[in-house]
């Protein structure tokens, strides 16, 4: 696709996205009160039953998942990658890492789907590895700090993933001291870490790509992240991570629309489920986040759950 065509694609996609955006009420609890008085009497609330009402796909889990808890929380399917390697990662190592995930998939068929890890500094080997892993049922990627997602090193990999109809999952961060965000507070992350602006650049270059920014609950500034992606309709965020600040999910929906927010845990299962159950959103919106949105992305490549 030429640069001009891509620009048209982005314009068109943004119009559709903006048109369907639902701005949730952030203060519905207040609306249900009259004159400052509490109008709803105390009621029993069966939390376990509430959690069970929603189908769930975990769009961000790292090996090894706690399968006991996964079962209890009713998570239908887990998309699982190997733990993060910051910089060094040769082909022998990332092949071994993917083999471990393939073994995990065999232990939990139809429950765990592996995500493919590669290092873009090894172009040929990475492309071969994507083909090898895709043949064995792995879907999507688990990419880390080896290069920014906007780095030309990633272009052939992104193009391969687009061809396969797979989600391009990249570890993203945005906090003080990371990748240009108030670097006087430098916290020692490598300069090749992908920040929201890098995702925007890559996503605008490849509007047909599906980019997943992981993870707005991972400790970074989630308001910054969500605001950065407002006008980039092919960037999706998962709400995974240990930070379960109130308002995070609602704010993501407000900025990105209800179709671009995904359920993820990053193995913080309670926070992953809890922040969505507790969000001031409709059941329909919650179901989209828990399951439908990610499944719709999977469907584009024929990898969806029935």
């Amino acid at each position, binding site marked *: 696709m030429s640069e001009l065509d891509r620009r048209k694609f982005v314009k068109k996609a943004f119009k559709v996205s903006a048109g369907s955006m639902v701005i949730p009420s*952030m*203060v519905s*609890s*207040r609306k*249900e*009160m009259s004159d*400052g*008085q*509490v*109008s*709803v*009497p*105390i*009621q*029993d*609330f069966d*939390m*376990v039953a509430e*959690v069970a009402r929603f189908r769930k796909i975990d769009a961000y889990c790292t090996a090894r998942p706690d399968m006991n*808890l996964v079962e*209890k*929380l009713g998570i239908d399917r887990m998309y699982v990658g190997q733990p993060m390697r910051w910089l060094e990662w040769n082909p022998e190592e990332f092949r071994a890492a993917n083999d471990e995930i393939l073994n995990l998939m065999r232990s939990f068929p139809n429950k765990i789907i592996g995500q493919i890890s590669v290092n873009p500094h090894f172009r040929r080997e990475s492309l071969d590895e994507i083909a090898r892993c895709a043949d064995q049922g792995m879907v999507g990627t688990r990419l880390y700090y080896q290069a920014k997602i906007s780095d030309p090193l990633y272009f052939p990999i992104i193009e391969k993933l687009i061809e396969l109809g797979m989600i391009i999952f990249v570890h993203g961060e945005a*906090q*003080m001291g990371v990748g240009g965000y*108030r670097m006087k*507070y430098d916290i020692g992350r490598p300069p090749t870490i992908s920040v929201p602006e890098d995702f925007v650049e890559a996503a605008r270059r490849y509007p047909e790509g599906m980019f997943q920014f992981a993870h707005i609950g991972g*400790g*970074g*500034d*989630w*308001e910054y992240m969500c605001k950065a992606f407002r006008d980039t309709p092919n960037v999706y965020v998962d709400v995974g991570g*240990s*930070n*379960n*600040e*109130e*308002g*995070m999910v*609602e704010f993501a929906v407000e900025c990105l629309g209800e179709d671009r927010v995904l359920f993820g845990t990053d193995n*913080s*299962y*309670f*926070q992953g*489920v*809890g*922040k969505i*159950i*507790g*969000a*001031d959103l409709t059941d329909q919106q919650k179901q989209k986040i828990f399951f439908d949105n990610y499944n719709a992305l999977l469907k584009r490549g024929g990898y969806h759950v029935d």
Partner: protein
Amino acid sequence: MWIDINGYIGQWPYQKLILDDCATLMHRMNRFGVNRTVVTHLNAIHYKNPQTANRMLYEELQNMAGMKERLIPFAVINPTYAGWQYDLKQSLEEYSMKGIAVYPKYHDYDISDVNLTELARMSIEYDVPVALTLRMVDHRSRFWMDVEKEWMLTDLMPLFRRVPEARYMIRNVANSTRLDNEDMQLMKKVQWLMDTSGRVTNNLEGLIETFGVDKFAFGSHTPILDYVTSRLRIEYLDRNEEEKDKLRYVNATRFLNID
């Protein structure tokens, strides 16, 4: 029945909080079936004179029917600020507050500060607990003016060592709970109750195995953290209902000395 030992009203200077007053807190409690909540005014953490916010909380509680029975107010005391003994007396006697909350990181004093030691000793005389919150907000996503270093469990030990007879509530434990043998022995002697809002309590089962089921209680850290996660940690424990009830309300009732 549920008692939340870690709730707030008020605002955080660096981030809009959705539910910020007693009425919205009560509404949320009703919706999620929470009977009572320990409540502290967030503004007191950032006011130079925290007693202003303690009074705001007191006045708000006077203005709505049913609140005094269900909201359990804690006073924020800065023991390095002039007149804190008067503030403490006023809060506990005149305002009928049921506990003390301290924020050394925000009020810029050390856990070993002699004034904090005195405050802890006074809590024994008043027979009220002292709440210590290890994390207010995740330092990684903080605004640049917010505190950078969070506490670990071991950071509380100097106070526990100085005043082991006081009762301590430990809230939002997000970092290491590792203790050396000496501190572990100290923890066994001190009366404390830890809430389930902190990410460390994802492994609540392991903590209970180490410290016992009587040492933990439901606490949400609302409205900074979501209202559900802290409760899921209890609901999905592999424990019987009697033990879960201890976490839901029994331990809190005993520790707070309430009906």
